[in-house]
């Protein structure tokens, strides 16, 4: 019944090695993954990325379809990348040309690789939120930022805000849909008309959503206060963070992936013979 509710930022309950990982380790691994994805500039690199992403999804015991559903609303980013690449990259055989817009074979190749790469990165990021509860995420971020709090950086507050934002994401999405339908019932159209008309139509959509966000924020802050929340001081951390076997295995795997990507990357630059 609630399967459609799988969206980015949602937690998917399961008992898997990935779920059991230390959130700090997970955050670091995810960060490494994101950064090293940049190294995948050809099909081999993308394939390596894909294999490791699949391994991670497999290890998380989450059906591939669920992960896909969770990034589905973000697919427009992919479409955007495709269009951007197809039109702006001018390499190899040129098929079509108009002003600054050029469609070339190189453009297509770039588009495909770029899209796959961004898609895989979304999968990876989604896996992080699917396997990590907001509280674990809070604890993880807070702990990683802890050194900074010594110089006055609000690491606990930032972590708490991130966690609450993730918690309320689905609530806002629901409300957004409801408001959109309510305005549509009053004859509003959101997918027709000029850019100006469409931009104007954002007001009846966003204004109630902001009002609702303020309402939620107000009530939530009271609910937190009434439950004795007073910042990080003296607050118990129920989930003692401890790196374990799972985390070291994850570090090992991600290291292998990074090394592979670097090797492939070096080979490309070596073969083709021009600097990266």
């Amino acid at each position: 019944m609630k399967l459609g509710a799988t969206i980015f930022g949602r937690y998917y309950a399961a008992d898997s090695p990935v779920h059991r990982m230390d959130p700090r380790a997970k955050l670091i691994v995810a960060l490494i993954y994101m950064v090293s994805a940049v190294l995948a500039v050809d099909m081999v690199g993308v394939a390596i990325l894909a294999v490791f992403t699949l391994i991670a999804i497999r290890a998380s015991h989450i059906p591939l379809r669920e992960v896909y559903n969770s990034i589905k609303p973000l697919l427009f980013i992919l479409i955007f990348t495709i269009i951007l690449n197809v039109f702006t990259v001018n390499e190899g055989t040129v098929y079509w040309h108009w002003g600054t817009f050029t469609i070339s074979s190189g453009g297509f190749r770039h588009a495909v690789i770029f899209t796959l790469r961004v898609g895989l990165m979304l999968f990876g990021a989604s896996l992080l939120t699917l396997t990590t509860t907001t509280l674990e995420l809070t604890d993880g971020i807070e702990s990683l930022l802890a050194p900074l709090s010594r110089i006055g950086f609000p690491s606990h507050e930032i972590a708490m805000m991130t966690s609450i934002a993730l918690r309320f994401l689905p609530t806002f999405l629901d409300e957004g849909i409801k408001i959109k339908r309510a305005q549509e019932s009053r004859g509003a159209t959101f997918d027709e008309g000029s850019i100006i008309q469409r931009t104007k139509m954002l007001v009846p959509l966003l204004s109630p959503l902001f009002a609702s966000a303020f309402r939620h924020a107000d009530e939530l802050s009271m609910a937190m206060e009434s439950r004795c929340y007073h910042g990080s001081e003296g607050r118990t951390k129920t989930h003692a963070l401890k790196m374990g076997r799972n985390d070291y295995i994850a570090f090992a795997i991600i290291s292998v992936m990074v090394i592979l990507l670097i090797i492939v990357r070096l080979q490309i630059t070596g073969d083709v013979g021009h600097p990266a």
Partner: protein
Amino acid sequence: MSNTKARMSCETKATEGSAVAFVHEDNGASYEGDPVIFNCVTYSYDNKTNALEDISLTVERGQYVAIVGGNGSGKSTLGKLVNALYLPDSGTVTVMGLTTSNEDSVFEIRRRAGLVFQNPDDQMITSLVIDDVSFGPENLGLPVETIKERAAQSLHEVGMDGFERRETYNLSGGQKQRVAIAGILAMNPDLIVLDEPGAMLDPRGRRGIIRVSHELNKAGVTVVLITHFMDEALLADRVVVVDHGKIAMDGTPAEVFVQHERLKELQLDEPFAVRLTAALRERGVYVPYTINENKLMEALCL
């Protein structure tokens, strides 16, 4: 009416104030006297119109009190004053012997007098049920083992065993409210204030919450239920009707709800038996006023 303290004028009350002595121990386990005392409390949101005016009210230990009134009557403000979310402009609110305006007591007051709000969504602070129930005790800095025990126990008390690893977002409104109550129980409170807990629920969810509140009351927790549903108020030990920031009526449900004319004046719902009695009298059939449907049936079968 039953509660003489509440009906005493503020002048008399003020002189007698010293008669009640409180002993508060730092471990927080015991206190003497009544759990909640409003002494001539006035509160205003905007310094122009008073949301509450000169309220004096005492909730007795172990009591189940329903605070009834329309929207804007000031009833929700009462709840927030108990929890020290609001501080009175004048007068004092004393909770378990601690004055809410004393900054050092606020933390202890909130631990011992939990507040459940109307909107179930806005009380789910984390995405996992177990994390949410642990939120309060974590803020209290309790040891991890104690938190785990209390969280499990609290979820059991509200009938939500087995929901530990569920996402708060995917629960029904009624289930969310139960989790919210469990989150407060985990702080081991002596008193719970429920601020229109059923207003956004369907009838089934609402019934469930009211049932839980009565179970807690039987277990010794003082309950203050703020509501505009008369069927909920009928089950209380005592009903306090608030109107335009003042206490309009105070007594047992039977005392309050048989007053057909007065309730009409205050634009409040009436119990079914009272409404039927009024309708019968309009039709020339005399029956005495009662809130009890069985009694009414007996009277009709005479």
